[in-house]
């Protein structure tokens, strides 16, 4: 599942300089997402995370993602 989520994030943030999805518990539904992208530059964290939620809206809505931790950074 991390591969599918990574693909969704990659297409939402094509300019990302850092992008990773980690299955936190090994159970396939608790994930840690890290994205560094110029798309986040200048945005408050709440809007940065909204962009990640938007990118992952489908797996969030259908329950594929039970828990999501997000760390975002604007690219320098």
């Amino acid at each position, binding site marked *: 599942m991390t591969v599918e989520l990574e693909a969704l994030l990659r297409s939402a943030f094509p300019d990302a300089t850092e992008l990773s999805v980690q299955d936190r518990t090994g159970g396939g539904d608790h994930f840690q997402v890290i994205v560094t992208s110029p798309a986040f530059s200048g945005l408050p*964290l709440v809007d940065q*995370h*909204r962009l990640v*939620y938007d990118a992952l*809206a489908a797996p969030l*809505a259908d329950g594929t993602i039970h*828990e999501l*931790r*997000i760390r975002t950074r604007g690219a320098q």
Partner: protein
Amino acid sequence: MSELGERIRQTIETEDVVLFMKGTPERVMCGNSSRALEALRSVGAPVTTVDVLPDPAIRTELSALSNWPTIPQVFVRGELVGGADIVQELAETGELRQKLEASLDEGWQDARAERIVELAPPRPLRLA
């Protein structure tokens, strides 16, 4: 807006700091809610908590209002600050304290008692 939605909106707008969480401060039912609560406590925020578990409609209505899909959610003076990751990060960098300092009235740290607002009565047990 539904009556429940209206009560959620009022709570967000009238309370200084609101944490929508799974469970209560005495009985936290989710790791992320716990992280958000601890981050708020670490800066002495006057937290008002709302348990979303008694009625699934609370969560649905809240997410529709806030445009934020997950629980917990933290609001300061009516503005969504974010979920557990953001609040924890802001607490660590000192920005959370700055935000409270800038948003709340003087003396906010003296009024740090936690409050609980109940938006829905516990559902009665249904005996089949």
